[in-house]
């Protein structure tokens, strides 16, 4: 694959990132008429760390925090993947060099971006070939165990970005409020929420049920396939499918929340990686973040409907799925 072809795949990825694919939102790419999930095929995922620190964080401290963040994903019992620190490098995280590099870049022009992940993929099968993560050194960072007021926690942000590196897109399990200059998170129950917690917060060091379900949906062990199940159905308004509805599955027994989206014209959704047992479903419009944080703006997301619970308890079988759910929402 030539350099140009690889670059092209990034553009395709961005355009097609909103293809519905199982649990909440995974990154996907269309190959012909089918959709393939973006994922690593070769393990361990080897990554390099730029040999450069910033104020308050040495390169060594940065690498240690990054390793801990990778470890959080590696430790998911229902997923089969591993990562390995390959060494320090002088390479920049924005270079295309067949190496996955994580490091700081000074990007004052991106004054609302704490960090970002980029990919090179093989469009024939969705295989991730390289993925880089840059942390914007315009912001103040910390590796303190309990967090530092006014500084963003490297490990928390790294856990989020490594989720992208592994093939996850953003999740919408959170609530925000409008403040001057943008939105602020009130609360979230996924590390893959597109807006970070405030500086000094370390909550996103720990994966939530939604994150684990998404990762396991991509890299699930055979036990995961046997033991967990899914819910699929449609969200409709006046008989027509709703695009972009956020559907939450809540397990009242475990109090775990896992989200998914309806992303096709018929309003169909799938939420995978659910523990067997009864669940409650709740559909809401995607109004707690910029639509572009989740999907391409051309998707035609409908946010004009009221939040609604599904009237029946939905039981997830072990190793199977429950389908034919229809959540009928009403216009605002």
């Amino acid at each position, binding site marked *: 694959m030539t350099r140009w072809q690889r670059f092209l795949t990034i553009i395709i990825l961005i355009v097609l990132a909103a293809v519905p694919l199982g649990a909440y939102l995974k990154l996907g790419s269309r190959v012909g008429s089918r959709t393939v999930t973006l994922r690593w095929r070769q393990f361990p995922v080897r990554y390099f760390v730029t040999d450069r620190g910033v104020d308050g964080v040495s390169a060594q401290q940065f690498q240690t925090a990054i390793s801990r963040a990778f470890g959080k994903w590696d430790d998911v019992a229902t997923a089969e993947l591993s990562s390995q620190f390959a060494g320090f490098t002088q390479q920049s995280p924005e270079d295309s060099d067949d190496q996955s590099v994580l490091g700081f870049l000074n990007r004052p022009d991106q004054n609302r971006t704490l960090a970002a992940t980029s990919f090179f993929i093989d469009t024939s099968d969705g295989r991730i070939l390289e993925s880089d993560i840059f942390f914007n050194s315009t912001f103040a960072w910390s590796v303190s165990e309990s967090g530092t007021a006014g500084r963003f926690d490297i490990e928390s942000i790294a856990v989020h970005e490594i989720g992208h590196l592994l093939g996850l897109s953003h999740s919408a399990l959170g*609530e925000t409020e409008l403040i001057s200059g943008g939105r602020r998170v009130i609360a979230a*129950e996924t590390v893959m929420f597109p807006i970070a917690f405030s500086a000094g917060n370390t909550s996103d060091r720990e994966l939530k049920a939604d994150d684990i379900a998404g990762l396991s949906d991509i890299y699930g062990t055979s036990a995961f396939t046997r033991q967990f199940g899914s819910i699929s159905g449609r969200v409709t308004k006046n008989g027509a499918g709703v695009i972009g509805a956020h559907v939450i599955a809540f397990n009242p027994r475990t109090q775990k929340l896992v989200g998914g989206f309806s992303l096709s014209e018929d309003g169909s959704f799938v939420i995978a990686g659910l523990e067997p047992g009864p669940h409650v479903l709740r559909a809401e419009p995607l109004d707690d973040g910029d639509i572009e944080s989740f999907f391409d703006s051309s998707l035609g997301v409908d946010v004009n409907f*009221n939040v609604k619970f599904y009237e029946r308890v939905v039981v997830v079988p072990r190793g199977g799925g429950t389908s034919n759910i229809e959540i009928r929402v009403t216009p605002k």
Partner: protein
Amino acid sequence: MIARGVLLVLCLFGAVDVIHAQTPRPRPPAPTGPTPRGGSWEIGGGYTFVAGYDFDTSNADLTRNTASGTDRFTLFISDSSVQAAHAVSGQLGYYFSPRWAVEGGIRFARPVFRTELSDDAEGAPDTVAEEKLDQYLFSASVVYHFAGAGSSIVPFVAGGGGYLRELHESQELVETGAEYHASVGIKNWFGNARRRFGVRAEGGFSFRDGGFDFDEKVRVLPTFGVSLVYLF
């Protein structure tokens, strides 16, 4: 219809007695002694009420951003319970002696699992979501009777254990557990024929360990049952 059946059977027994009285020969000794005795059987079926139970409130909580508070952010609240159930039940008992018997039983009920969804942070209307469970109980009991053979009113106590099997509405998920029970009751036999019908009423407690539950704890549920029984 059951009452008519009982009446008919009693009349037939009565007719046999009349025929015997009209024969000139001496009445032969009863083929057996008074029942129940060792070797007697008892079969019955009827209705059982099983109390429901509540689960602890489940909050759909999100992790709060420290900039907006320190408590958990509750997206909505879920209050769940299993409603009281009306069950059909049947049992077959074997008497080792006039006072001691063992029984095997089966009970089927369709309790409703209900969760009330409220206090949604974004204003979703309060909703009650439900599903029906298919609940089977296969049990074994030891029964002690406080009156011997030939008595028409027989108080008794019973205790035992069983296997609980519950299927969720989709019939694709089974939850199993153990059940232990203790009860007191009374049997009212009609007449004193060797084979006879009666009514049995009992109340007690069922101790559930497992099955469909949110918590790993033993639940104690009151039960009450009435059944029609036949001794032979």
